[in-house]
């Protein structure tokens, strides 16, 4: 399946936590070697979606409809052993606040040895595995001598985040999933993580999928972007389309306008209100109560569907899609 086709496909997936749907009818496809961003505020279902890529949705969450395919194989059909293989060799994840993911009572090197022992078939000898990890540490701009024997308490937050990335890369995954990779880091460490992820993509050809609420990070890194709101996709497109297209979802526009920057306009806008509870969704468009472009006649009554233009730029908004629908109607006549 290494023919440049999609490496990860999410096909009409719904993830339920009891009565609520954290993710609803989401489809996306990530090409080999692509940098893909999943964007939204807290409570939009973006982390849950990322967890489903490795089949690690925390209980009681279940994928109740649709399927996730990695390199063409449906992951729900995998045996436990195959799933372990998938997590080791195909897809790796760096969880949110990964700086808290290291074991505080054993050294970093010790933890790496544990991983190598649990997956003895990845490297011919443990020594080679260790040497590979040292190269990874250099890739994430850390000195192997300093890190190997260190306990996590001796490392700064930024260093721990980078160690977590190196550990995730240890078994040579094809795809790296990161949940909020820069949240809680200072700007200098954010910049480092950005540079590292770019290197992974540019020099190793790694497929990177990351989840964030920060559109500045998306601008710096992503090639394709999926914007989620209250469990549903509202826009999918290239990073150029998300930032510059004329037809865009008002939620994506609002997320961009909320970033305080040192450059350009100083004016920033907050998004009024908050993400609705998934148990009390408003009728019609889920973003309507917060939307500056809302139209009472349609937005509060009919849920918009995700429509594509000729270039596969998908937007789910009645107002943004108005011209598109008109064009389609004319073309169909």
């Amino acid at each position: 399946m290494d023919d440049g086709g999609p490496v990860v496909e999410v096909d009409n997936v719904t993830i339920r936590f009891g009565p609520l749907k954290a993710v609803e009818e989401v489809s996306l496809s990530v090409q080999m070697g692509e940098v893909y961003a999943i964007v939204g505020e807290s409570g939009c279902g973006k982390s849950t979606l990322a967890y489903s890529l490795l089949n690690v949705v925390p209980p009681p969450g279940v994928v109740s409809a649709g399927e996730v395919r990695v390199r063409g194989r449906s992951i729900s059909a995998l045996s436990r052993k195959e799933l372990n293989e998938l997590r080791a060799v195909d897809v790796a994840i760096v969880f949110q606040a990964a700086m808290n993911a290291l074991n505080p009572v054993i050294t970093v090197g010790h933890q790496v040895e544990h991983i190598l022992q649990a997956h003895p078939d990845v490297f011919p000898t443990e020594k080679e595995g260790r040497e590979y990890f040292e190269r990874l540490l250099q890739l994430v701009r850390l000195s192997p001598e300093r890190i190997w024997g260190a306990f996590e308490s001796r490392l700064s937050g930024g260093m721990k985040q980078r160690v977590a990335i190196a550990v995730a890369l240890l078994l040579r995954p094809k795809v790296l999933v990161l949940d909020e990779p820069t949240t809680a880091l200072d700007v200098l460490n954010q910049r480092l993580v950005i540079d590292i992820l770019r290197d992974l993509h540019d020099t190793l050809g790694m497929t990177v999928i990351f989840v964030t609420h920060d559109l500045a990070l998306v601008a710096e890194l992503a090639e394709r972007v999926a914007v989620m709101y209250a469990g549903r996709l509202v826009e999918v497109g290239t990073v150029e389309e998300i930032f510059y297209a004329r037809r865009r979802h008002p939620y994506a526009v609002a997320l961009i306008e909320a970033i305080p920057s040192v450059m350009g306009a100083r004016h920033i806008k907050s998004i009024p209100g908050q993400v609705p509870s998934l148990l009390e969704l408003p009728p019609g468009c889920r973003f309507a109560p917060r939307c500056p472009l809302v139209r009472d006649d349609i937005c509060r009554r009919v849920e918009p569907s995700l429509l594509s233009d000729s270039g596969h730029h998908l937007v789910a908004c009645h107002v943004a899609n108005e011209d598109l629908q008109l064009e389609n109607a004319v073309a169909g006549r």
Partner: protein
Amino acid sequence: MSLLSVDNVTHRYPTTTSEIPVLNAVSLEVEPSSVVAVVGESGCGKTTLGRLVVGLAKPMAGQVRYEGKDIWGLSKKEWQMYRRSVQVVHQDPYASLNPGLTVEDTLKAGLLYHRVVRRRDVRDELLRLLRLVDLEAGPAFLRRYPHQLSGGQRQRLVVARAMSLRPRLVVADEAVSMLDVSMRVSVLDLLLSLRSEHQLAYIFISHDFGVVRYFSRGGRIVVMFFGVIVEEGPAEQVISHPRHPYTFLLLDAIPVPDPRLARRRRSEVTSKAEERVTGEPSPAGCIFSNRCPFAEDRCRAEAPPLVETMPGPDHRVACWFPERVPDLEKIVEETVQAPTAEIPDGLAMRPQDESARERTVDNAPSGGTFAPAWDGHAVAGHARAAASDARPG
């Protein structure tokens, strides 16, 4: 008279083994209803500074003065008044609220202890405070526990708790860095509106110049590096005309919410950059010298004092070669041009990039053979190599 002044404060935690103090001879002044933003990376001592200002720790040397009086020499009554007048909003609203107390209990404790209002007026005061921070002002909300609130609501509650004592100074320590982007702006706006309505002064601690630019308009910015103030001045000026290389580094590191500009700048970043980001402070000479692209022998031998610099007034920097640091305005100009449709895609940016570099060279300030080095950090490597060649021996 300043509302609060930090005068030549040096502090070291007794448990640390490091020789370098957490704060080293730090001074700053906060005027009534003004904003002083303290900016720096994690571990630069900005949180310690906040702790000393609110009286949570006593400095090893130097003084913190409130209305001219050393806070560690106050009478019991004065101390109570000072503690009431200087409040703090911490970074993590999940940690700074007691999970066992309802909204009502959280807000009531300070009101009763400091006798801010009469007991029978407490209820009205609670509702007034909730309205003040745009929270739902009703009895149902007062009965909620922190775990029933969102991150943004919690941080608003923390702000309400601080405001309940009618403070004159609020220390906001990374108050919005844990919040989602959308919440962040609304909490910043809330703090700004309280400032104008209640003549409140802020010490605003943050690592993010984007947030600082928005919050501290008309105020002052203090840039700290490993316990030392390296630059200080009017907010707008420090951001558009940084005079310390570290300030520029912080500004330059901020992710740009504009894909075309971000990709254009990508080529300017080289493998040298990370040394600057993660390096330890220099033990001799200028504390920033081992991370600085402009460093020369003088920097490694002699620490520069914090002195007035161009374009002044009231702009001070601790650097021997402040004229070599480029203005941020150049980048701002580029940003304004960037979102036009003339660039077809992210790949066609090299020629543009070259011209940008030339422009910087043309505009380089005097003595600035090394000034364009910031464009390509690699050039800084040459500068450093040249400097070490020149060294005798």
